[in-house]
């Protein structure tokens, strides 16, 4: 009964929405124009990076906070768990992972650098690095996390703190996150570099913390 009602409601909702979408005129405002016009002052030449770290950089600042919060939340929930032992110790896979890791690091650095003028950036670079860490863990070369110690915690929060410090430093001469056009490129690169490290640690941490809660198997 409930199943039927929910399915009918969801279907009806989708139909109404699709119908309304098909009868939609053009939008009143086209942000593509101001995005393009201000690109020269944004410090980067890739439009998505300009939106992400300059025009709507405040969203990104809060998003980094969400990620750090998620890590703390996972820490809270998985507290007092045992450290996971590596699942397998397959020499061939371990060798492959050892080879893949530097390669992935190079890719990450490239993505970070490329973000200024083509697709890429801190989030993609950070997630590639995190993927490398997950890979190392899966083949048994990297243990799961205990409660993170100070150096690790420093790495985790460095991204948000740097971002926040740059954002509030701009208050001295204007608005939050208002980079002077001449320095924008450099500041964005600084933020992105630190963010890459922190994001990689946080994303890897989400996995490495979760994979420890089972004890010896």
């Amino acid at each position, binding site marked *: 009964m409930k199943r039927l009602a929910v399915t009918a409601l969801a279907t009806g909702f989708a139909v*109404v*929405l699709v119908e*309304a*979408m098909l*009868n*939609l*005129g053009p*939008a*009143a*405002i*086209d*942000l593509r124009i*101001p*995005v393009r016009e*201000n690109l020269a002052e944004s410090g980067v030449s890739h439009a998505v990076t300009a939106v992400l770290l*300059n*025009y*709507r*950089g*405040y*969203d990104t*600042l*809060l*998003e980094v*906070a*969400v990620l*750090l*919060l*998620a890590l*703390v*939340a996972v*820490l*809270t*929930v998985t*507290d*007092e768990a045992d450290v996971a032992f590596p699942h397998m110790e397959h020499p061939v896979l371990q060798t492959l992972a050892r080879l893949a890791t530097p390669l992935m690091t190079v890719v990450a650095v490239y993505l970070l650098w490329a973000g200024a003028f083509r697709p890429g950036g801190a989030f993609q670079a950070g997630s590639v690095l995190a993927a490398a860490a997950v890979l190392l863990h899966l083949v048994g070369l990297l243990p799961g996390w205990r*409660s993170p110690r*100070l150096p690790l*915690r*420093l790495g*985790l*929060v460095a991204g*948000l*703190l740097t971002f*926040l410090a740059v*954002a*509030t430093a701009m*208050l001295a001469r*204007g*608005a*939050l*996150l*208002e*980079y002077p056009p001449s320095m924008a490129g450099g500041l964005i690169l600084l933020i992105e570099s630190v963010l890459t490290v922190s994001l990689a640690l946080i994303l890897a941490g989400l996995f490495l913390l979760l994979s420890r809660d089972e004890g010896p198997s």
Partner: protein
Amino acid sequence: MVWLIALPLGWASLTVLLGPRRGAWTAISALTAQLWLAFELAQTVRATGTVRHAVGGWGAPLGIDLAVDGLSAAMLLLAQGVALPVAIYARAYFKVRSGHPGGVWFWPLLGFLIAGLNALFASADLFNLYVTLELVGLAAVALVAAGGGAPQVAAALRYLFATLLGSGAYLLGVALIYGVYGTVSTATLEPLLTVEAPRLAWIAGLLMLSGLMLKTALFPFHYWLPPAHGGAATPVSALLSALVVKASFYLILRLWIGPFAALVDRIAWLPAVLGATAVIWGSWHALRAVRLKALVAWSTVAQIGYLFLVFPLLGDDRIALHAGGMQMVSHAFAKAAMFTAAGVIVHTTGRDAVAEVAGVASRLPVTLFAFGLAGMTLMGLPPSGGFLAKWLLIEAALARGRWDMVVVVLAGGLLAAAYTFRVLRQAFLLPPSGERRRVERRPIAVLEWTAFVLAAASVAMGLRGMEIVQLLDAGT
């Protein structure tokens, strides 16, 4: 204004750095500074009207704008005003319970929660609001889950899926709005969203509002609230009931009188009917609850109902808006007080049960006094803030000849009196059971007095009502 967001983000990160179970003083001193900042901001808003800040210097619609008018300033002041005493309470609470798993990472979670709330109250950008909603929602869920036991984790999971469903609906609404108009800035949208808006804009509005109602736990979406608020650690319960549900309600109100004003007139009766049902249903469950904290949590369901009564009464005279604002403020303080007082009773008697309250009045006079004062606000007795809120609500209802709503408000007050006296009668009139004395622990003064301060604040709101109403009117 910006510092109200940057500061909690900063100290949240800092307390992560400090490590497990540390950072209480960092948090308390920062919250003190924030309270002062919020107070200054409210003064500025009252004197000069809405304060705006174009983040990144771009200005909407390309950039994100922050805008604090009287309503936002009142909410910011409220958030810091509740958070500071609750933080002082939490420090003592987790100090006695040194083994409580909820205390390990409490401070960073609190920091992110407050940062999210402040960012939400200040934002004037629909997508940015989505990010703040997630920040608040995930922090709140984590705080509930931190309790550690199976009931808490189950309650947190229920809460998580409710809040994700709510923000998912909100996000789809934002996506549709961007599709229709090409912007998500509320100020830019307001003149565009007229009665002739395309159907898609209406659907977007409905999606966003219903998502937020789910997050506010409006009947019949209230199912997740009692276990989450009733089962969490006491400081967490206080924060959730006082502030987190208010945040999504604030956003409903903001959208209702802002961008969607032209669209929602015809459906204003719906939230009011649901709200009226919530008043009765929540109070009824509060009357029957076995656990003390569950009683307080069900009372939140009822008090949220009042908030939704304002929608058909909103108009140029702004009385209903004042009523909604007063109800948010006074309920926040009263409910924080009630939860913290209940926490003291639970701590002292060692059990979370209404029946265990018997005879504690002589041991915990301050706490019981706080509980009674908070109850006074919930009932709507003068001179409390709750009295003023209900008075304004009745006035607005009478101005529109809505006698049915007057009846709901009065009935809700009587029911609130009934469940408050249910606790107080036990405390003052019944003798304690002999078996219980053995587990009794010494009361802690800090816990008792912070509960009392919160309760006193909820009453004082009635005495300073004029100032609050003036603040709510600023910047319009």
